[in-house]
């Protein structure tokens, strides 16, 4: 096994937890003393740094939310002064006002080495050409991946997003061995390549995709891997944590969350209670070493489970499983919780329809009505209406079984649903609630 930092990556769990406790303790003392925001929060919760006597005492600390960053726009809760900062990133603000994240040099170093560990764990390194097709700029994806890839000695091809035909030409001409982008953009690249007569499998050296920044499913992974002939690795991160930060290893069994960088908890999104390892809930992360913008028990809003056991790759750090939905993406249809990722997962198992979809929710009378638009595949088109109706009924039946709610299906022409080059917006909720 190749490790970027074997001492940390293979450190026994007890040692890691001792390290986490020390880091947490000094972090809490530092914030209590120097951050008016966090000082007040702790006072409100009647917690004092002296109450943190073990790692599990993290539960006594108050939560942080995305809104804390919005409410304190742009930099009111930063704990480093502007002259200590070396970079800003700004989130897209799709869910409200934008949020600003600042970084000291140490923050950038930690972010970059986290990625260096991850990229090494999937077998990338010197000699690889990594095409970075995440957006460069205010979004953390492009620059974050860029520095991580350079750190491991790979050659970066900084294509950013867009101009897909040129991306494919450069991928061929410069022999890109890996690509980092959103899974939906990689699907788009695959479709454009096909139209150009380029077979990614045979005509390029691509062998790995580092895919993230939007939810996707294992079904989508299987499809990408067999279609494009590459290994597709999931990567996780949000700007509040730094950016794209944690990848799967070659085992593809969840993201390794480096314990020296972050403390992971899974909580019940309704009650805030901590859940046992293996239980599904909201991911909550405490960044143990961030300087400019510390995040304590930050509730990301992503739904997942945590696996504490040692990975087959030998790394000892906890792994979180593929993100299964967002607390705020969650649709409530006739009282039932529905995640768009469940729809995607169910569709992936139905060969008659394509991988793109759109969910439209309306209120008809007193009832919610959920319509899923999905493309009928070329191979399953028949001149007989009854054959097509069978496909429609099959999809409706499968979705009803996996979502526990009635779904109407609209079959649409192939290629007619919008393709997105950034974060996919797959849900249109027309209910005025």
């Amino acid at each position, binding site marked *: 096994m190749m490790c970027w930092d074997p001492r940390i990556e293979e450190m026994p769990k007890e040692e890691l937890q001792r390290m986490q406790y020390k880091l947490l303790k000094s972090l809490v003392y530092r914030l209590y003393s120097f951050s008016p925001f966090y000082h007040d929060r702790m006072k409100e919760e009647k917690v004092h740094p002296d109450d943190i006597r073990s790692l599990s005492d993290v539960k006594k600390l108050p939560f942080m939310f995305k809104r804390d960053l919005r409410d304190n726009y742009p930099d009111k809760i930063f704990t480093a002064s502007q002259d200590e900062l070396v970079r800003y990133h700004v989130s897209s603000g799709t869910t409200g006002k934008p949020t600003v994240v600042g970084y000291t040099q140490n923050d950038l170093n930690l972010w970059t080495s986290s990625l260096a560990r991850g990229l090494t764990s999937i077998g990338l390194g010197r000699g690889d050409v990594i095409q970075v097709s995440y957006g460069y700029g205010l979004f953390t994806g492009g620059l974050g991946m860029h520095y991580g890839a350079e750190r491991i000695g790979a050659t970066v091809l900084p294509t950013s997003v867009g101009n897909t035909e040129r991306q494919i030409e450069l991928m061929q001409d410069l022999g890109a061995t890996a690509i980092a982008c959103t899974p939906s953009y990689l699907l788009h690249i695959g479709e454009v390549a096909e139209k150009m007569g380029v077979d990614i499998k045979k005509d390029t050296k691509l062998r790995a995709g580092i895919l993230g920044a939007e939810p996707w499913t294992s079904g989508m992974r299987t499809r990408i891997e067999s279609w494009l002939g590459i290994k597709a690795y999931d990567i996780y991160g949000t700007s509040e944590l730094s950016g794209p930060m944690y990848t799967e290893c070659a085992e593809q069994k969840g993201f390794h969350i480096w314990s020296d960088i972050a403390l992971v908890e899974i909580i019940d999104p309704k009650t805030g209670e901590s859940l046992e390892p293996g239980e599904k809930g909201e991911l909550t992360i405490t960044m143990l070493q961030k300087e400019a913008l510390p995040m304590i028990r930050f509730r990301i809003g992503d739904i997942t489970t945590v696996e504490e056991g040692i990975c087959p790759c030998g790394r000892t750090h906890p792994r979180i499983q593929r993100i299964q939905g967002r607390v705020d993406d969650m649709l409530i249809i006739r009282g039932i919780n529905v995640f768009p990722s469940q729809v995607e997962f169910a569709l992936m198992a139905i060969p008659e329809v394509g991988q793109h979809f759109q969910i439209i929710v309306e209120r008809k009378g007193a009832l919610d009505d959920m319509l899923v638009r999905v493309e*009928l595949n070329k191979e399953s088109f028949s*001149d007989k209406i009854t054959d097509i109706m069978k496909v429609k009924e099959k999809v409706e039946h499968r979705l009803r079984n996996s979502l526990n709610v009635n779904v109407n299906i609209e079959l649409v022409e*192939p290629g007619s649903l919008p393709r997105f080059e950034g974060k996919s917006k797959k849900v249109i909720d027309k209910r005025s609630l």
Partner: protein
Amino acid sequence: MDTKKFVIKQISIFSENRPGRLASIAHALGEEKINILAFSIAEASGFGVVRALVDHPDKAYKKLSTLGFNVAFTDVIAVQMKDIPGGLYEIAKILGDAQINIEYSYAYSGKDAAVLILRVDLVDDAIEKILTSGATLLERTVFH
């Protein structure tokens, strides 16, 4: 019996059921100077299937596919009917007696006679039965 010369290539097109879809299909065919000889639309909830006999089916298939349409070829037959009361009955009875199922059908009334386009489950059997019963099948060359 050589049944092949009576098998006609119909093009079938998947279409969403919304304004303008037929227009864009017809426009594409017009651009390629493809003539539509017979035509029908079957509709279901949210979508439809346009079926047509054209003079250049391969060209039509290619054009519509590049525009992103779901297109398929289907084997159909064309029977000449007497354009008088009972004309349809004569043909339908031949197939019914032979236990051949009509999946769908559409008709047009031409200069000389009425023509019934049939999509059946057993194409070769249908051709044989119709011919042996003395009815007239139009050859493929009439269309393309």
